[in-house]
């Protein structure tokens, strides 16, 4: 075994599942070196990640989907040299998070690879950005968005390039579909939010009026019925908008249902998803996992229909996702 050339070992382990690769690392030093080396990890397809902000511990829980076995693996982020961290984006197998440094009060943006247990701080941002910016990662490109500007990291070492923006408020859940960014923006008053969909092209960041509203008269009240809406990429050229159904006009009243709307970007028509009509989401019944799954599948594997319907994927982290959604939508 020791005589095997590295290429042959790569070739063998690249055919094995992620748990087998992780177990293989503890066989001997040669295996450990091989299976943590950048050339080997470069052969693996980027893994879908799901990070959930920590409730119990200040570090988030990170789940990695092994597409070969269709199961979720939990990873530790204890290698982050930070007492707490808050995940904001994942792309191509890398996780982006805000980390709090123990020395200064300002948080920094970091990127880490859970498979190599290595992390790196991105070039520093101003404190306003660190406090209010929304992070968006498309491929390897990192953007931080606010109502007044978009900053883009030109290379791994920087610098940040700044482009002016034209939104009424901080863009919410920006989502990349193809070459375009879509985001929700609150154009309402401090007392009553009014969501609107905006979009811009990544290739036109220098433009004066960067963001353009995307609206149609026949959309009616699609944004009025949702509370705390979020965008996630849909399958193909579509966006999913997910939110709690507004059950009353009272501020911060709890939601009892979750609604998923799909916007087809070809026809610009909204459509309800998740089995027609309002889907009751109250309680913790497992039969609501379909709704859940639709959302997670599109969130994690926007181009994969194949794993749709495999409920077992969900079971592994059902509890923690539940906690997160309950918090998000005040269920």
């Amino acid at each position: 075994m020791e005589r095997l050339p590295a290429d042959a070992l790569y070739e063998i382990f690249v055919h094995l599942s992620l748990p087998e690769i992780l177990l293989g690392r503890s066989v001997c030093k040669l295996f450990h070196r091989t299976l943590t080396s950048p050339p080997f990890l470069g052969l693996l397809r980027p893994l879908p990640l799901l990070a959930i902000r920590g409730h119990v511990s200040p570090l988030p829980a990170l789940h990695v989907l092994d597409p070969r076995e269709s199961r979720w693996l939990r990873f530790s982020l204890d290698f982050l040299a930070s007492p707490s961290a808050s995940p904001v984006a994942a792309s191509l197998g890398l996780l982006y998070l805000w980390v709090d440094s123990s020395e200064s009060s300002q948080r920094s943006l970091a990127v880490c690879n859970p498979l190599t247990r290595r992390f790196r701080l991105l070039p520093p941002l101003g404190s306003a950005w660190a406090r209010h910016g929304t992070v968006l990662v498309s491929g390897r490109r990192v953007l931080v968005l606010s109502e007044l500007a978009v900053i883009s990291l030109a290379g791994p070492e920087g610098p940040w390039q700044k482009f002016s923006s034209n939104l009424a408020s901080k863009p919410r859940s920006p989502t990349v579909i193809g070459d375009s960014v879509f985001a929700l923006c609150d154009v309402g008053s401090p007392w009553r939010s009014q969501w609107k969909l905006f979009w811009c092209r990544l290739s036109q960041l220098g433009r004066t009026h960067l963001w353009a509203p995307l609206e149609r008269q026949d959309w009616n009240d699609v944004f009025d019925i949702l509370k705390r809406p979020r965008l996630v990429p849909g399958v193909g050229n579509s966006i999913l908008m997910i939110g709690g159904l507004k059950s009353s006009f009272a501020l911060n009243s709890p939601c009892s249902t979750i609604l998923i709307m799909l916007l087809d970007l070809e026809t610009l028509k909204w459509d309800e998803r998740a089995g027609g009509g309002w889907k009751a989401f109250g309680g913790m019944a497992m039969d609501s996992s379909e709704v859940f799954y639709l959302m997670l599948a599109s969130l994690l594997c926007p181009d994969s229909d194949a794993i749709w319907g495999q409920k077992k994927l969900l079971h592994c982290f059902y509890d923690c996702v539940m906690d997160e959604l309950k918090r998000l939508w005040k269920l």
Partner: protein
Amino acid sequence: MSESTEKKMVRLRSSDGEVFEVEESVAKVAKTLQDMLEEDCADAVIPITCVRAPILTKVIDYCKDQVMISSSSSTTNNPNERTEQERKAWGQKFMEGVDSSTLCELLVASNFLNIEGLLNLGVDKMVSMIQGKYPQEIRDMFNVVNDFTPEEEEEIRNQNAWAFERDPYYKKRSSSK
């Protein structure tokens, strides 16, 4: 290939000194030997320094079979031609009974001689042997020495334990040790 022309022979010497005489077409299945023969830089006997005789025998068997398929594939209704399924079955049969140390040597040989098909067969076999095994089983199977200190091993286990903590099968297996 016409029977009337005399077949050119090539001699190969294994690391333990045994000399094998094979047809040039058989030797040329190995890209490394093909390059040497085409550049005419092969000596009377080509030394295959990292391959022992029993392994070289197996490699030559493989190459002979490849020549048999390719030399007859141009004719129609070729009895030797294989469907994808037959090819797979043949590969499995060829690797049947190959133990782990022979397999490693075969992989080293096919890598050195650059025989892609044999390398793939070896990799597939290796994958099927490692699949679903735990570290100690892999060490036992391939005579790999665990060269971690207990502290190092503990640390790596802890790093990876997260990935399996919700897997009852893994828990059962690791706690039974």
